[in-house]
């Protein structure tokens, strides 16, 4: 009963704090917070000091529980979002290759973009979509958008709205049907790509709004992959980059670059090395690199500090776990 009371009190406390913060946001009591560089560094030092304290406790055979690990992960992700520490993002060759490819395309070139992911992977992939769309709009490249995942076209709409707002563009600057179209989703996974090899219209009779294919000026003369100058696939799994490479690239000769979740990225490196992929953005760091190249810094760049921090915390806990392991004579796992 006592535990239940504490639980209810904690929930009430969180709710009250949330209401206060929310009211503060809408009534302008605060405009958000940011730590100065010195405070940020002090917070970093404190976190590391506490990690060392955990290491010392481990050496004294006092092990931490999983909820402490959860807490540290939460802190490592949250606090950097308030910090102001600059980090240098290094551009890898595989991301540079995508930018170079876009640079070589003539204005008016047709670029096919398939968004094969859902909101679960959006924090990693949405920044890639936004920066890619933004760069295409800057260069007057015509976008033909589709999805092998049902949520892909909706994510595309969100990405376009976001990047247009960021770039100060409106629907008269970028015209639907002429500068970009969203063909929507079609079921059938890799068979959709296979069929598109002979006819786009056969798979996408209408766009996502229900406009017939032939009424869309941008795609009216696009029959199959031979009418596409470049393509970009943003993928979180199956169906995705692997299927695009196997069918669109290897069978129909499409030039393809990819943006993948970090989980998937290592599995497509062989395609990159074999020249089946022009370039690759792997995970959020790939997105941040592309944002830097295009000067369209967005969420991926902002999140990089949290990303760095969280990695260090995971590494720290693996080291602590191993210290405990070696201290126990390499016999056992951890017991709380």
């Amino acid at each position, binding site marked *: 009963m006592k535990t239940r009371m504490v639980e209810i009190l904690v929930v009430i406390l969180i709710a009250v704090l949330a209401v206060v913060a929310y009211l503060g946001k809408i009534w302008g009591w605060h405009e958000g917070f940011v730590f100065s560089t010195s405070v940020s560094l002090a917070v970093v030092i404190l976190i590391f000091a506490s990690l060392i304290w955990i290491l010392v406790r481990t050496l004294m055979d006092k092990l931490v529980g*999983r909820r402490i*690990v*959860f807490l*540290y*992960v939460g802190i490592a*992700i949250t606090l950097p979002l308030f910090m102001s520490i600059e*980090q*240098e*993002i*290094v551009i*890898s*060759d595989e991301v540079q290759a995508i930018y170079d490819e876009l640079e070589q395309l003539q204005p008016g070139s047709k670029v096919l973009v398939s968004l094969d992911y*859902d*909101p*679960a*992977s*959006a*924090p990693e992939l949405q920044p890639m979509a936004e920066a890619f769309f933004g760069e295409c709009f800057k260069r007057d490249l015509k976008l033909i958008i589709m999805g092998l995942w049902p*949520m892909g*076209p*909706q994510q595309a*709409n969100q990405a376009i709205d976001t990047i247009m707002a960021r770039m100060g563009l409106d629907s008269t600057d970028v015209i639907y049907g002429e500068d970009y179209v969203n063909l*929507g989703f079609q*079921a*059938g*996974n890799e*068979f959709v790509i*296979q*069929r598109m090899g*002979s006819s786009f219209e*056969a*798979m996408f009779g*209408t766009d996502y*709004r*229900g406009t017939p294919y032939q009424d869309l000026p941008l795609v009216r003369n696009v029959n199959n992959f031979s009418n596409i100058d470049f393509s970009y696939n943003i993928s979180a799994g199956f169906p995705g980059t692997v299927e695009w490479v196997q069918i669109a690239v290897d069978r129909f000769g499409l030039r393809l670059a990819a943006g993948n979740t*970090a989980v998937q990225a*290592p*599995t497509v*490196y*062989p395609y990159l*090395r074999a020249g089946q992929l022009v370039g690759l953005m792997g*995970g959020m*760091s790939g997105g941040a690199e592309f944002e830097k190249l295009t000067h369209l810094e967005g969420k991926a760049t902002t999140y*990089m500090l949290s*990303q*760095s921090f*969280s*990695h*260090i915390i*995971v*590494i720290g*806990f*693996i080291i*602590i*776990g*191993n210290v405990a*392991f070696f201290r126990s004579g*390499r016999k056992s*796992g*951890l017991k709380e």
Partner: protein
Amino acid sequence: MRREVPLLITGIVGIVFVVSYFIPHYPFSEMEHWFSDWFAIVAACAIVLGALNLMVVSGQKIARRKEGWGYAIVIIATFLLMTIFGLAGGTGFRETGTGFDWLYKYTFIPLSATMYAILAFFVASASYRAFRARNAEATLLLAAAFLMMLGRVPVGDVITCFMPEGARMSDLAIWIMNFPQTAGQRAIMIGIALGLVSTSLRIILGVERSYLGGE
């Protein structure tokens, strides 16, 4: 009828796809187009079947007052809510500002994203509890993981800023991804491809029939 017809269908359809790879002309190209179109429709029906089956199972749970039947009501209610908004929205159901889009934005996105995001905690906890340098292989695995975790984020280069350019953590991480990692992936990839080819052949020739189930 129950076994012979499916085996025949599998064989014919499989052979058409194989032959059309080598002879992408009439009649095989035409047949391949039909099959791809049909596949899209059947795949959509399979997905709808899954959703309907979920409703049947949830309905049975409610009817029999099984444990957690209250949650089954929530499943059916939210399913109907989403379906009604979507179907009533017409072909532009996904447009910004529609009820369907509102539900997508404020329920589907947070739930779907959080479901996966929660794994971050468990990955960290599991690494702490189980990721051990027990032997040479495990140590190699651990070292590669550390290099990736540091080298693919800016902090890696901060730690190795004293090194000359080209020999920093990010360079090492990229080198590993491009060479040893690619080599291992290729070995796995080729192995899987060979296994898949033999399984596909067994299916097309009717040797492998387990997908037909019992009876």
